[in-house]
């Protein structure tokens, strides 16, 4: 077992997560497309002034100058902003709201006035030659079992165009991804061992998934910075999943150990491989040149915007688990309800009839069983067994029209096409004798009325389920 403390391991994470909204600086939807593009645009890039006014003649620029960039666009889901033919629009407020939520959940200080910046990018992945980005929050933290890992910064930025192919001097990009909002979360290099890195990544991941973010392959990118005592900083790009972060750091720390011994540790950017190893990508570039997006005003985070983010903060799964435990769910039931994302439904139904285990069966388990039994899709079954239907069934159980044990049968009949009324009525026939008990209960609820008044109440409640004659007989028997 390696002693990482002795090795002087320092590591930080940089996580990019796509948000589930429209684009950041125009009104286009954030949809990745597989069909053929409607048009292409051909562009070149040329050198621009560096920070002090001199021309930035890096090798990268020289390479870019020789290239032709081809951009594929769509008439209905990309616009003039993506092809750099129209000034960007004001920042997407929903994306800003989500970025603020993420920042608050990561205990950050929100920056009240910030400027949207242009970060020079010359690989052609941005039609403008730069990526727009803004610093939203700083100085947060995420808890791990081995202490806090500081959050250095949270930025809201636009995603780049995605590369389709490279043919000789031409690079083909598709514009569908360009402009999708990303939050970039950078931690301080506080992480001291591979296990802690994984824990921090999982925790940040949980926070992100509690907010409105995109899910699935390619929607999150995780980079890891790592160094050991006596060695240089290595940036590892694109670790696929949190589980791999641990393995990647273990392997890189081992590799660095050997390099430091040989005096060969170099600053460099490496690419994460699916097996937890890495390969050389490029030397570490200088700090990116950043200058203001002159087409937009300063971004002011008003008290109102911040309050809205605060008030609507989503709960984390770990918090929800705590709540569900209090309600009295065991782990298995908890898993079911979390997986099916039916927490809100559970909470509202518990208020009607307090038996969470029964409700979870009605919400999650039985619809599945009925679907497979009836050879229907779960969507079909759920469209007839809506939360309103389940609520009516629970009301019937509560008022003892039916028994808990009959709930599944009622649901099955409703899914088969019976009306709710008929399904509940059918149960009555099987559970005969219940009406008398219910009439007793009704008399207990409203004592001291005369027989005609009770007759009215009974007929109102059990309309269609009992004849006037039967009702009169029961009442006569009960009221002497």
């Amino acid at each position, binding site marked *: 077992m390696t002693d990482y403390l002795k090795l002087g391991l320092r590591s930080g994470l940089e996580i990019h997560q796509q948000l589930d909204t429209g684009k950041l600086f125009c009104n286009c939807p954030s949809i990745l497309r597989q069909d053929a593009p409607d048009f292409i645009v051909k562009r070149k890039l*040329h050198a621009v*002034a560096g920070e002090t006014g001199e*021309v930035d003649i890096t090798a990268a620029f020289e390479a870019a100058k020789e290239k032709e960039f081809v951009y594929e666009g769509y008439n209905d889901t990309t616009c*003039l902003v993506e092809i750099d033919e129209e000034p960007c629009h004001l920042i997407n407020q929903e994306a800003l709201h989500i970025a603020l939520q993420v920042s608050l959940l990561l205990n950050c200080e929100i920056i009240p006035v910030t400027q949207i*910046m242009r970060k020079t990018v010359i690989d052609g992945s941005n039609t403008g*030659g730069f990526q727009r980005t803004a610093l939203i929050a700083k100085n947060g933290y995420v808890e791990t079992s081995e202490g806090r890992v500081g959050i250095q910064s949270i930025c809201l930025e636009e995603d780049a165009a995605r590369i389709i192919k490279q043919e000789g001097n031409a690079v083909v990009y598709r514009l569908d991804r360009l402009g999708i909002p990303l939050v970039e979360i950078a931690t301080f290099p506080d992480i001291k061992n591979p296990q802690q890195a994984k824990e921090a990544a999982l925790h940040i991941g949980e926070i992100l998934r509690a907010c409105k973010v995109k899910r699935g392959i390619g929607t999150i990118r995780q980079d890891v910075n790592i160094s050991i005592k006596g060695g240089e900083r290595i940036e590892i790009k694109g670790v696929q999943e949190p589980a791999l972060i641990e393995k990647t750091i273990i392997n890189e720390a081992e590799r660095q150990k050997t390099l430091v011994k040989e005096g060969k540790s170099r600053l460099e950017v490496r690419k994460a491989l699916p097996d937890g190893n890495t390969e050389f990508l490029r030397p570490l570039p200088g700090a990116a040149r950043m200058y203001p997006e*002159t087409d937009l005003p300063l971004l002011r985070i008003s008290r109102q915007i911040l309050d809205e983010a605060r008030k609507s903060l989503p709960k984390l799964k770990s918090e929800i688990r705590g709540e569900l435990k209090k309600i009295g769910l065991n782990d298995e039931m908890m898993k079911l309800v979390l997986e099916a994302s039916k927490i809100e439904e559970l909470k509202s139904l518990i208020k009607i009839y307090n038996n969470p285990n029964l409700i979870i069966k009605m919400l999650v388990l039985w619809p599945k069983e009925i679907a497979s039994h009836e050879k229907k899709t779960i969507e079909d079954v759920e469209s007839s067994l809506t939360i309103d239907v389940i609520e009516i069934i629970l009301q019937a159980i509560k008022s003892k029209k039916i028994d808990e044990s009959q709930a599944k049968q009622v649901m099955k009949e409703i899914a088969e096409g019976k009306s709710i009324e008929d399904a509940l009525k059918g149960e009555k026939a099987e559970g005969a004798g219940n009406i008398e008990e219910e009439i007793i209960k009704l008399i207990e609820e409203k004592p001291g009325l005369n027989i005609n008044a009770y007759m009215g109440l009974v007929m109102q409640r059990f309309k269609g389920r009992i004849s006037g004659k039967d009702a009169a007989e029961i009442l006569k028997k009960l009221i002497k």
Partner: protein
Amino acid sequence: MKKQVKANPGDYINIRTTKENIEGTLLESHEPDIFLLKLKSGYNIGIKKEDIYDIRVIRKSKPEESSEKEKAAELKSKKELPNIAMIMTGGTISSRLDPLTGGVKWLTSPADFFKFYPELFGIANIKKLEIPFMIASENMSSREWKKIAKVAAELLNDPEIKGIIITHGTDTLHYTASALSFFLKNLNKPVILTYSQRSTDRASSDASLNLQCAAQAAVSDIAEVMLVGHASTNDDFCYAMQGTKVRKMHSSRRDAFKCINSKPIAKIFPGRIEILSQYNKRNNSKVKLNAVFEDKVALVKFHPGMNPDIIDYYAKNCRGIVIEMTGLGHLATKEAYYNLLPKLKQAIKRGLVICAAPQTLYGWLDPYVYSPGRELLKAGINKGKNA
């Protein structure tokens, strides 16, 4: 804010607010309640002045070195290449972001500008650079057109100069192109106006292709006042468009300028030219400056229900009116509630010159097709073809 601020844009400072200490480079702020700060990370943030407790200057900014020296610096030239001249007048193509202050400013050392466009110098030497003024094109007037024309005429009559490039803001570039077409008589060499729609700090700026093609056109055989700019959204070739037949037709696209009622003179690629229509050939005549312009002329757009009193107003204050008319050249006449004819006749009687132009932009005027057209003609209104 309790203390007087002694920091200037460009200074590296420490700001103490009620909550924290922040270090960074002070930038120019356009919002009076905000100090703008560039952090070490490169990001800019704003700090409300009301939250600031103290500001301490850690390092004063170094003044930008040597613009004087660079201004004087000889523009490098290669013997085998033709010589051209450039006139800079302002606009996006002549501005740059000042990284020290964060503001967008006019170029202070034009030599810097050329560093971004080395391709230009593979086509021609910029033998002379003239900067009569630097303004945004919406601020131009006939005074500026006359200045440009005067400088241009001198350069055109310099035997060492093969052609001229004029860089200019886009908003009114087509007005200047048109004015120069009339001001420069006996044109002997190419006069090229060009621009950029995207600022030059972007690696994607359209200035690069526009300048290369402008240089290509300036050394060509075409002795016309031409606007040279992107033919489409692609960075592949430009059109050379006649100065009197071109107009800005889009507020933001690279190919904003289009020929109206004409074809481009040529397609210009970096390195070659494809002629599309007839042109005046390069020649040895001497350019004569004819920079006369009457400012007291109104450009009035006719619209349905236009009140005739409006004509009265212009008639009292102007010496001529150009009216953008509907269709083939029509205005509301006899059968209209507001008949404009009586006021127009009065104005003409008073000595005003009234001209017609088509508000459709595309197509020619023809006064003989409908009776209102004939009425206007009879009243004494000048109808150019599509003037």
